């Protein structure tokens, strides 16, 4: 049997998805892990959504943690998680969806440096489902940090 024809890979990208960024901001701002949210450059022109995580939830070795979310009208996205550590090191990873020449459209940049990339599968690509997966993964990361104290 022949393979179904593939969608022609888009060679460009769409603008930021304003409505999805607003929807995610509404949920982030009421999440128990999140201390503060902000749009970049501002709420009238949302292009990047920042979530500052509550440092009080982390052991003292972590001085700050944040989530940077970009969502595109093409359904592509980039969710970047960054921890700043007391010793000056960063611990970061990224959930990404966009065409590229070496991985599946949906892929994951592994911690601690986000340079190694692996294919990823998620049960749903709906923004709220992706959001839930990411926040749950971060919650488990915080538990791991505490148990390794």
């Amino acid at each position, binding site marked *: 049997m022949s393979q179904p024809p593939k969608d022609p890979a888009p060679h460009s990208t769409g603008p930021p998805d304003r409505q999805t960024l607003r929807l995610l901001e509404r949920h982030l701002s009421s999440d128990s892990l999140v201390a503060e949210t902000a749009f970049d450059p501002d709420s009238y022109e949302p*292009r990047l959504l920042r979530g500052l995580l509550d440092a009080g939830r982390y052991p003292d070795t972590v001085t700050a943690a944040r989530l940077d979310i970009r969502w595109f009208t093409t359904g592509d996205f980039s969710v970047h998680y960054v921890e700043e550590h007391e010793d000056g090191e960063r611990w970061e990873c990224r959930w990404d969806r966009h065409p*590229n020449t070496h991985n599946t459209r949906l892929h994951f940049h592994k911690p601690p440096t986000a340079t190694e990339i692996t294919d990823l599968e998620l049960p749903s690509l709906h923004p709220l489902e992706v959001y*839930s997966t990411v926040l749950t993964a971060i919650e488990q990361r915080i538990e791991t940090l505490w148990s390794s104290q």
Partner: protein
Amino acid sequence: MTEFDPAPTSDDTQRRWQTGTDTFGRVYDVVLGVTSPTAYTEIAELADCSPNAAKKHLDRLAEMSIARADRDSRPATYERNEGYLEWQDASRIATELPIEAIIDRVEALEAQRTEYEAQFETTDPTAVNVFDHDSHETIHERMTAVSEWQGVIRDIRLYELARQLSQNDGHLIPA
């Protein structure tokens, strides 16, 4: 240290965003993230409610113009109503910002557009090849830049609409 799991599967995973919302709130939030015609049965699954409840709330959201319905398709499909939500955005800008601020922003955005056109040596962002690069970082940088450029072009139109609304005292058509 246990390895980090980017896609943990627990019952909580799917439901984290749902805490503290009722059925209508969940259906509303799900449809705001739906950008192509989607069966109400699928929306029901995402909103964790019965198909009948989802359909009832989706029809109400369609009456409110927040959702677009295609009731002729079997099963009926729904998606967010992009045009209405854009108008809402423009209306909010017109209400909250003085007209001078709106005009200033259009000028600032037009200057940004000119910078992008010089950087990529074209006036058409869709003509820029974003993804066909070996370096992942390059793809990422270009994706962000071209997307923001497209965002600038769209925001210029949005502020133009806001300016019109502002000049007509909130109406699209002058009295």
